[in-house]
């Protein structure tokens, strides 16, 4: 990928990718790192980025894979050394959760919605983010997450059911 192509990718998709990274990690520092690693990884995969029909979904898939690897390694370290105090990710998520929502300079209504979404299990939250925030189709989401389309539809459905329960009375009827 040339520097010009990289700059173009960042200009076109930077906000989308960064928002996804923020909602995945719920931590600005981790999001910054994940965002940076995503583009650096993308620059190594020259042919794919050229011939992908949807560069944005390709970049999102890289971000997701990097995040999954990171959480898997962290879970492994946590499992074999639970007595250590530098539990890193989970503590930073807990500590910065309030900070994360303070980044959302949004009206109260939107914050309530985001909080409900962040209460969803990760398996449901990520398809919701990709479908509504990133406006990907079900089949694109399936490719990003490397799961069957049927599973994507099922998770979207369950996520919506849970959100309906949480938000009823607040946003509507």
């Amino acid at each position: 990928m040339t520097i010009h192509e990289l700059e173009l990718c960042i200009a076109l998709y930077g906000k989308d990718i960064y928002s996804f990274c923020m909602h995945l990690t719920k931590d600005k520092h981790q999001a910054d790192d994940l965002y940076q690693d995503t583009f650096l990884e993308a620059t190594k995969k020259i042919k794919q980025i050229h011939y992908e029909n949807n560069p944005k979904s390709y970049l999102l898939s890289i971000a997701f894979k990097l995040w999954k690897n990171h959480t898997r390694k962290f879970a492994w370290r946590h499992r074999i050394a639970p007595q250590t105090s530098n539990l890193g990710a989970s503590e930073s998520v807990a500590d910065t959760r309030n900070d994360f929502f303070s980044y959302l300079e949004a009206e109260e209504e939107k914050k309530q919605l985001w909080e409900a979404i962040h209460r969803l299990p990760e398996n449901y939250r990520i398809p919701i983010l990709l479908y509504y925030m990133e406006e990907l189709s079900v089949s694109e989401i399936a490719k990003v997450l490397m799961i069957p389309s049927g599973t994507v539809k099922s998770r979207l459905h369950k996520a919506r059911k849970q959100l309906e329960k949480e938000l009823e009375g607040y946003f509507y009827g």
Partner: protein
Amino acid sequence: MDDKLNNLLREKLKPDFVPEDELNSKIIDQVKEEHLNMKHPKFKSSVVAAIMVGVLAIGSISVYATYHFQSASQVVKKLTINKSLADAFESDQAVSVNESQTTAGYKVTLMGIASGKDIEPSLSSATEDIDTSKTYAVVAIEYADGSPMPDTKDKNYQTFCLTPLVNGKEVVDDTLYASVTPLVEDGIQYELLECDNLEQYADEGVSLGVSAFGKETEAFQYDAKTGTHNLNSNYKEMQALFELPLSDIATGNSSSDVAPESTEVTTETQNINGSSNAKTDSDKSKLKEKEEQSTSVNYEASDADIVVYDSDDAEVKYSVDKDSKDCTIRVYPANKNASSNK
């Protein structure tokens, strides 16, 4: 589907976070530096010349190999006339993985996996009794330097072992009736694994080990403390270990791009002593089939709901009335999750 919620989500969920300019500049600067280092490597000129010759030679072979790199479905079509198996690899029943690991001069790629009850007949069975509940995986093995793998008829032809490794089971004896069918095409060796359906172990977690034939006990180690299988760091020959995304294999829904609006629920009440008031014979047989397929059933004289996820994609919920001993059975189509008894 609730349109209000759908509209609300579409309207309110926008990418709100903007990366700082400094962060973007840092990325661009880093890539610029990498490009610069690639153009002006700090090596002696003779070494540079040798590397360039090597890269040109290897590069051309690698391009050749990459060009002929096939999809899992294409590999299956070459290996068998089993159309449903090839179709399964192109369907929602399959997961395209395409994860590569480089080990001891080899590049090993897990291309994809597929599981299902409706893939028939099984690859290796020539008999009438065909077990359709199988998992299939396609692995590609090539030399990391791009030179071609020996053909199956070549005296230097190599045999490899694909071993499903279930977390919590020490195993290697229980190979889950795994069999492997090889294909060498355009210098790449493909292996098609067929074994007992691994979805039943999705909750425990399953890895796929790839090693030279007969070396699986040396190549991989079982950690009794964590229940996981890992690469043996003392083993220096070819070894690759892939985690299988089994919990993500599910039977596909319709091709419509919309999530299902409602789940179909059937309710029956069956006396715990065996009588049933199922409405029709087909309902009775459907329930019976689901019960038989359940991984565990516990008729307890309590009023707790007991949820079992059967091998189909249905959630079967039993609730038992203490006094009458009536057991109400509700069946919900759902994806398989962890089964639990409350």
